[in-house]
């Protein structure tokens, strides 16, 4: 239950319903042509498009043409940057849904200004994530073997026992669910844009809105369908990242063979995603001057969640170290004592520890939580820290496992780096197109929120409403 006295005003400035529409669509409607956009938008778009073109237009075809040998992978490190980046992106993708859906299911009304952008972020992050396993198989044209399309040419079925198959199914399900949830939520807003536009734009949004009109029955069905999608996507977030973690923990490799991995991965995903939501919302608020919708209270609430999640991350790191010592398993102890804490990978390990478990503790200070610059910098630091965490999970245990004779060093090649930058380009281009052409906030939900806020202002407190209902 939303309580104004706890959260404060979620939409500042006593906005009317028409003003909400104006404010959210101002940046779209003020552009005279479909291709016109502010200079900063074009500069950012060109930058990310170059990354996308070089990464996905050159390095991906190069990998497919010449093979995985173009990457830094070797006998020991069969999973290199591709899987680091896959887990990193999928983690970011999870928070969009976690943010939007967990808060929807928990009836947290402060999600309304942020959920749309968070969901969009999910779609582009999952697309970026999906690219890596797709090219990592080496022969993408044979990928249909992964799907259970029926007994293959040897009369065999897919291996249902393999976490890698679960991964394919889970991520396909996740992408589908996230996309449908995102798109369904936009239908009413597409109808608003359709009504306010003319010419080709009207036709485009007519098609995109599927002729949506806010009939009473439509809203009822819409509410029910959205809550079903949300209710199913919430446990899906947990299951998908747990499944991703079993890709590692189902092995017997020291450093990977840990029962803590599923919750650790889920929390890590939410952590990195919330940081990315923070990064994006600070940018959107700044460039579109939406501080009345994304208020300091909103950012403050995200920062508080980050403190909580960061504490869980810190605990997980300490538990890993404790269990390695307590298990008395020499291989496990070696990975943690010699490889991570003091060995070849001490720098990324300690950087990860500081970035993820210590730096976010600065959010305990209100001044830091309320300062956009510090919020932005810390959100970036967390994203780097979470990338390092995936690096520490993927590389060191495989580089230095049971037999020292097998030990190897891993370093990425230019192709690895190029593809990673390409996915950043894909994400950036996607987010920029979303910001330019689609409703960046859920207008219908903001209006509902404004209505609720007015009711609460008129009543003295939420308890008065309960009392009134009881009297009735």
């Amino acid at each position: 239950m939303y309580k104004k006295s706890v959260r404060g005003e979620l939409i500042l400035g006593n906005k009317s319903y028409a003003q909400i529409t104006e404010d959210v669509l101002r940046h779209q409607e003020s552009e005279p042509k479909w291709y016109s956009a502010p200079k900063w938008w074009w500069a950012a778009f060109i930058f990310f498009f170059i990354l996308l073109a070089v990464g996905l237009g050159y390095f991906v075809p190069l990998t497919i043409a010449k093979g995985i040998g173009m990457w830094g992978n070797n006998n020991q490190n069969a999973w290199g940057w591709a899987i680091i980046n896959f887990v990193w992106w999928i983690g970011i993708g999870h928070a969009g849904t976690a943010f939007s859906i967990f808060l929807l299911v928990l009836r947290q009304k402060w999600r309304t200004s942020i959920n749309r952008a968070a969901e969009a972020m999910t779609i582009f992050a999952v697309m970026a994530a999906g690219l890596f396993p797709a090219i990592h198989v080496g022969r993408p044209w044979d990928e249909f073997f992964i799907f259970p399309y029926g007994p293959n040419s040897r009369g065999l079925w897919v291996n249902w026992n393999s976490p890698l198959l679960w991964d394919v199914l889970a991520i396909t399900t996740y992408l589908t669910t996230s996309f449908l949830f995102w798109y369904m939520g936009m239908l009413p807003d597409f109808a608003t844009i359709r009504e306010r536009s003319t010419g080709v734009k009207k036709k485009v949004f007519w098609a995109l809105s599927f002729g949506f009109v806010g009939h009473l029955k439509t809203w009822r069905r819409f509410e029910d369908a959205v809550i079903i999608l949300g209710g199913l996507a919430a446990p899906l977030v947990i299951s998908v990242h747990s499944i991703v973690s079993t890709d590692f923990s189902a092995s017997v490799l020291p450093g990977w063979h840990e029962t803590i991995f599923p919750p650790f991965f889920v929390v890590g995903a939410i952590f990195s995603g919330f940081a990315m939501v923070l990064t994006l919302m600070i940018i959107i608020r700044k460039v579109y001057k939406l501080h009345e919708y994304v208020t300091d209270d909103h950012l403050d609430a995200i920062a508080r969640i980050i403190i909580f999640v960061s504490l869980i991350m810190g605990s997980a790191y300490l538990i890993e170290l404790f269990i390695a010592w307590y298990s008395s398993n020499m291989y496990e102890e070696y990975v943690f004592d010699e490889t991570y804490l003091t060995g070849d990978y001490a720098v990324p390990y300690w950087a990860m520890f500081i970035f993820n478990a210590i730096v976010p503790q600065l959010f305990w200070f209100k001044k830091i939580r309320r300062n956009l610059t510090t919020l932005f910098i810390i959100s970036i630091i967390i994203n780097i820290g979470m990338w390092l965490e995936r690096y520490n999970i993927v590389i060191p245990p495989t580089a230095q496992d049971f037999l020292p004779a097998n030990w190897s060093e891993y370093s990425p090649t230019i192709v690895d780096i190029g593809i990673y930058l390409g996915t950043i380009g894909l994400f950036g281009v996607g987010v920029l197109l979303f910001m330019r052409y689609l409703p960046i906030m859920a207008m219908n939900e903001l209006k509902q929120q404004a209505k609720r806020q007015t009711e609460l202002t008129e009543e003295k407190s939420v308890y008065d409403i309960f009392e009134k209902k009881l009297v009735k």
Partner: protein
Amino acid sequence: MKKFIGVYDDDVKLLNGIDRMNEDRVKVDDVITPFVIEELFEKLHIHSNIQFLAFIYGVLAVIGTLAGLVYTFVIDYPLNIDGKPNFSLVFVILLFVLMVLTVVVLTTLTFFHQERLLPMKKLPFEYPGMHVDKFVVVVPTDAKEKAESIFRETGAIDMKEIEMNA
């Protein structure tokens, strides 16, 4: 099909108007609003069967997935690994994931089907602002007189007869 509409620019006035309609037993065919107003569902007894259908889809998806797994593991290609059949607890994960996929896709399709949503679907009518800040109450033309006085008394900003596409 001819209908009579009254337009409000405020949801509180709209709810008053609907209360009056209910008191005077004027049939309300539809209310078109720019956002969800949950009180209206209660006042006009609007229900949907989507949640029930979603449950049925879930049950069918679980049965279908289980049947598929049993077929592949036990009937079509039975394996015995170290004395154990190759039908382990993994089915729990697969059941969940495939159940979610099926329910999500079918629930969305049900919503689109029930609403007959199609690209470029003809709109029933257009009233400026009905997706922004206007609340349109649709009543049958034979209740026009009663409705007109209620609309006027409860602060409707506009009322008129319109041609509505089915």
